[in-house]
């Protein structure tokens, strides 16, 4: 297999990579042309990130070779990759949160004056980069004070600032809203015009068709196909990815909203600026979406419902009775569940097993006297793995070694095990592949059909429109309106989101 | 309460008395705890005694001396952690003309000589070792048939040393053995290890030695009674001191528990340092010095030619156990 084509900027040939118990990459090849946007697609755990980490010197491959600009390379570490014109936006945010934005951007290559760091140049260069990319963030602000999407934009700016010949973007848009995605696409177009190649990984079909020139598809660690995007349709991509037809993106709705179950009145957060005077109602079997721009405080609303934030005023009535969720513990007792937005910080226990991660919110159910029933723990874990279709060798595997999407599925499974009355989902399908998304939508539907109340925050408009019954649109901390999904349009939602 | 004999910030009823600043190398040292009490008793109504715990750290002690001088101590009573640090303390006291009474740990003679207001109260560091050696030799000679298990005329001993580098540990180890040898007795060291003055560590070392040498061991020598007691715990576990299985054990300090063991015949003897008189002499000299009197004024103490008041050690065995008992009255 050495039909090396000199027009390719990058050729990864026959790459194989094993982890203990997992064959993550099995003879995978990838060829990227200069100045092209090459999409890399596959289900969760297909091996996309692993392939890119092999390129970037984070993992060493077991077999195969990499040709970059016609020369064989094997970067021993990220430094070499960066120095040779490869940069990467990582799937998991890799930032030093205690430090400021410019420290993060110049980490590993600080500009110096003699032996000292040239802070002034750092600042000015950062500003210049931000300006050219149209990003509006103070280079001196601490990363930990940024919102997730701002952090993501900083990561993108950093990758761009290396002036690399190829930039890997591993799910760069998973925490961006539509405006920012457009912004990113502008940046990508510009890079393309400068003959920079982009390897673009995403689970958002619309983006792939819109931005990419070629698509390589992987399945279960194997190479499936590379095709020009123009010749592809969403359904074809999905078929190649999943290995079967998936005729619809959204399952047919079977839920019928019933009696009122949750009534939120005048909800106002204690620590402002945050949301205020938020009102809405939720019925049994109803799926209520929450839309809004970044910083519109959607997350804070559900966090408050779940007892993670203090309220200044307002009431939450569950089934006609006022409940006070002072803590997540209380909230869980009251029948709430929350799949949080930031999987890494508030979701997974990375070093612990899938079993542990599945059952941790539901321990009380396993008690027999003071002890926990191993049998029930095993059964429930099995249920999570099976019903959520988690790809893992065993129950004892640590969740940290799963692909991002599979981690997310375990977390959703965790909360389903608690059999909540009210299920709060904050960006539940972030980083999840289409097949799994479909499964999750099905689950959400099914839960709704069982009479649960479901609230789902999402920045993916098609998802909101495809899954929900009604949509609450937040704008700058206020509820700008509640619309009926059947009767609304993307434009109306955007208009409401920008209302205040 | 009187339990921890400090003094309050120079106020109270002792406030008007001349201030004596004192440091104890380690407050909870078995022996120093008695010296301290003797000092407290002697100081009552005579001087305002400001006591400090140097926590076995010479730097800390130096700092405490700074503090004491800053607080206006009229004389210093110093129980050195590290005898070679005496010069530094004199360097601090001399410019202010503050007299220094070292006690219990002896500075180099040249250092005492170098400052006319420096004195020493206590023993010679080596003396406890010498006396322990004499104790061993005497017990051996008297019980040779019983103690010399392999009948080779030599003492096969194991030795539990205190903290390595600690002047007492070094002196006791060296002089106990050399004294036995000087008495014409052959010795053979089976094992020597540090028990860091600690009973638990001593027990564990003794466990290992008993497992290895079993009845080859003929004598257990410990740098202090605490470790001797630890060794006895191990010996008891191995069946010693019941029936005719016996092991001679010696220590230093003659603490109450050791006296009890001597009484019961589980310990051959120990070496008593006279805490009462050491404490009293220290205060007597320091009080006189604080009042700018001659240090020996109105006392029965005598200075030898190196400006030291010597308070001797005493060997304690079953025969004179009352001497030990009296020390704790």
């Amino acid at each position, binding site marked *: 297999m050495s039909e090396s084509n000199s027009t390719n900027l990058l050729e990864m040939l026959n790459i194989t990579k094993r982890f203990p118990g997992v064959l993550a990459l099995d003879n995978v090849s990838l060829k990227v042309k200069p100045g092209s946007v090459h999409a890399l697609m596959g289900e969760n755990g297909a091996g996309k990130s692993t392939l890119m980490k092999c390129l970037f010197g984070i993992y060493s491959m077991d077999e195969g070779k990499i040709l970059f600009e016609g020369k064989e390379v094997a970067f021993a570490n990220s430094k070499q990759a960066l120095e040779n014109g490869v940069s990467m936006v990582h799937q998991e945010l890799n930032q030093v949160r205690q430090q400021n934005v410019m420290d993060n951007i110049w980490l590993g290559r600080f500009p110096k004056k003699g032996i000292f760091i040239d802070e002034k140049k750092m600042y000015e260069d950062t500003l210049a980069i931000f300006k050219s990319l149209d990003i509006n963030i103070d280079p001196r602000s601490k990363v930990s004070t940024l919102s997730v999407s701002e952090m993501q934009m900083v990561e993108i700016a950093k990758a761009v600032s290396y002036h690399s010949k190829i930039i890997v973007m591993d799910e760069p848009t998973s925490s961006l809203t539509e405006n920012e995605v457009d912004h990113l696409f502008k940046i990508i177009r510009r890079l393309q015009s400068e003959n920079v190649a982009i390897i673009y990984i995403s689970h958002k079909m619309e983006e792939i068709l819109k931005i990419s020139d070629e698509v390589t598809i992987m399945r279960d660690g194997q190479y499936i196909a590379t095709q020009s995007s123009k010749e592809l349709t969403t359904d074809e991509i999905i078929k190649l990815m999943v290995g079967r037809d998936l005729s619809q993106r959204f399952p047919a709705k079977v839920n019928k909203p019933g009696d009122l179950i949750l009534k939120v009145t005048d909800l106002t957060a204690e620590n402002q600026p945050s949301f205020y005077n938020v009102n809405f109602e939720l019925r049994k079997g109803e799926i209520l979406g929450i839309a809004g721009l970044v910083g519109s405080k959607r997350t804070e609303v559900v966090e408050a419902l779940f007892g993670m934030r203090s309220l200044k005023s307002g009431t939450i009535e569950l089934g006609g009775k006022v409940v006070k969720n002072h803590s997540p513990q209380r909230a869980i007792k009251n029948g709430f569940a929350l799949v949080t937005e930031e999987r890494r910080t508030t979701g997974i226990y990375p070093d612990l097993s899938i079993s542990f991660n599945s059952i941790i919110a539901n321990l009380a159910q396993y008690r027999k006297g003071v*002890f926990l029933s191993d049998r029930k723990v095993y059964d429930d874990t099995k249920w999570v793995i099976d019903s959520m279709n988690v790809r893992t060798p065993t129950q004892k595997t640590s969740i940290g070694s799963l692909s991002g999407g599979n981690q997310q599925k375990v977390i959703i499974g965790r909360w389903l095990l608690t059999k909540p009355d009210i299920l709060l989902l904050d960006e539940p399908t972030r980083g999840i592949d289409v097949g799994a998304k479909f499964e999750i939508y099905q689950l959400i539907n099914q839960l709704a059909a069982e009479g649960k109340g479901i609230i789902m925050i999402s920045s993916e408009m098609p998802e909101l429109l495809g899954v929900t019954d009604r949509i609450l649109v937040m704008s700058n901390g206020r509820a700008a309106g509640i619309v009926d999904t059947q009767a609304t349009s993307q434009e109306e939602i955007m208009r409401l989101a920008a209302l205040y | 309460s009187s*339990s921890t004999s400090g003094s309050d910030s120079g106020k109270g009823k002792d406030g008007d008395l001349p201030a004596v600043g004192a440091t104890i190398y380690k407050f909870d040292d078995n022996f120093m705890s008695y010296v301290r009490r003797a000092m407290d008793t002697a100081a009552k109504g005579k001087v305002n005694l400001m006591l400090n715990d140097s926590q076995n750290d010479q730097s800390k002690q130096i700092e405490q001396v700074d503090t004491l001088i800053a607080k206006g101590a009229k004389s210093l009573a110093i129980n050195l952690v590290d005898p070679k640090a005496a010069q530094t303390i004199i360097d601090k006291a001399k410019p202010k003309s503050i007299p220094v009474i070292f006690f219990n740990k002896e500075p180099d003679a040249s250092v005492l000589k170098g400052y006319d207001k420096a004195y020493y109260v206590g023993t010679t560091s080596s003396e406890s070792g010498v006396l322990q050696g004499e104790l061993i030799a005497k017990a051996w000679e008297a019980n040779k048939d019983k103690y010399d298990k392999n009948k080779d005329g030599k003492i096969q001993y194991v030795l539990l040393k205190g903290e390595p580098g600690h002047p007492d540990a070094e002196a006791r180890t060296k002089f106990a053995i050399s004294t036995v040898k000087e008495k014409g007795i052959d010795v053979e060291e089976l*094992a020597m290890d540090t028990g860091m003055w600690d009973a638990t560590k001593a*027990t*564990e070392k003794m466990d290992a030695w008993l497992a290895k040498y079993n009845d080859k061991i003929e004598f257990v020598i410990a740098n202090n009674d605490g470790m001797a007691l630890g060794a*006895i*715990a191990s010996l008891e576990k191995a069946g010693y001191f019941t029936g005719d299985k016996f092991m001679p054990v010696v220590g230093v300090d003659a603490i109450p528990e050791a006296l009890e063991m001597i009484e019961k015949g589980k310990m051959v003897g120990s070496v008593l340092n006279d805490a009462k008189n050491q404490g009293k002499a220290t205060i007597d000299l320091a009080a006189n010095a604080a009042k700018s009197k001659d240090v020996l004024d109105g006392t029965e103490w005598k200075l030898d030619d190196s400006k030291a008041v010597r308070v001797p050690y005493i060997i304690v065995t079953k025969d004179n156990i009352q001497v030990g008992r009296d020390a704790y009255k």
Partner: protein
Amino acid sequence: MNTQASKKSNVSKWLVDNVIYVVLVLLVVGIVIASPDFLSMTNLINILSQSSSRIIIALGVAGILITAGTDLSAGRMVGLAAVISASLLQAGDYAYKMYPNLPELPLFVPILIAMAATGLVATLNGVIVSKFHVPPFIATLGMMIGVYGLTSIYFDRPPYGAQPIGGLSSKFTTFAQRGIPVGQYEIPYLVIYAIIATAIIWVVWNKTQLGKNMYAIGGNPEAAKVSGVNVARNLIFIYMIAGLLYGFSGTLEAGRVGSATNNTGNMYELDAIAACVVGGVSLSGGIGTVPGVVTGVLIFQIINYGLAFLGVSPYIQYIVKGLIIVVAVAFDMRKHAKKK
């Protein structure tokens, strides 16, 4: 993949995952080569019995480490318990009793009092850590200093001042020094206590809600909160259990040595933490097993005992000990070797 190769790789994987057990075996083999008579029942019993009270302490510390905490006050609590129990268990006819008029108490009373004292102190640690958000290092450092002061005040009192509290009643020393005769040997009670404590802790860690919560808190405290774990309450329990273990261990120390001082237990926490880490407990929390902790303690004790047994000179002992610890863990770390 053919089965033979996979078998081989399985063995090497097992080896890598279980390096500490291999280290343990290698250590013993090394010492036996240096001195064949090391291989005796007496030595085995000695090592086990010396490890016993340390295992109990280490299990307490390990629980706290797994919550991503630490406990510097462990050793001082051992001392507190040792001094309290010894002072209450002096033989009736002993001349230098701390409480001259105290009748001989039934064994369990002083043990419970000592455990109550350390349990209380440890609970306070837990409260300071979980309610006032003081980092465990500082909370327990403060406690370590404070408890030492307390113990010293209790210890250094009339009538006899700072003297080892000895003359323990024979039922106390029997409790800690004797054992169950089996043939010509005795299985020390200490070992049995350690086995019981180990079993209980194993159950707590693996079979109870508290145990799972402990791992959750250490594995990701933010996530634990969101998962509905009452972090504060669970933390307090974990510290309290540790305190009870220290207390029990402290009474064993007093009984084993036959006396106690305010310095009993000094620095035991360092040994315990180190043994936990050698045994695979992660200082950043969330990771650790009971067998690992026990093995860690055994490794330390075999090093200590073995070096003394071999008669290695004390200074060299320090160097060798330092070396073995580092090398053992360096081996162990190969399983986490980062570049994959």
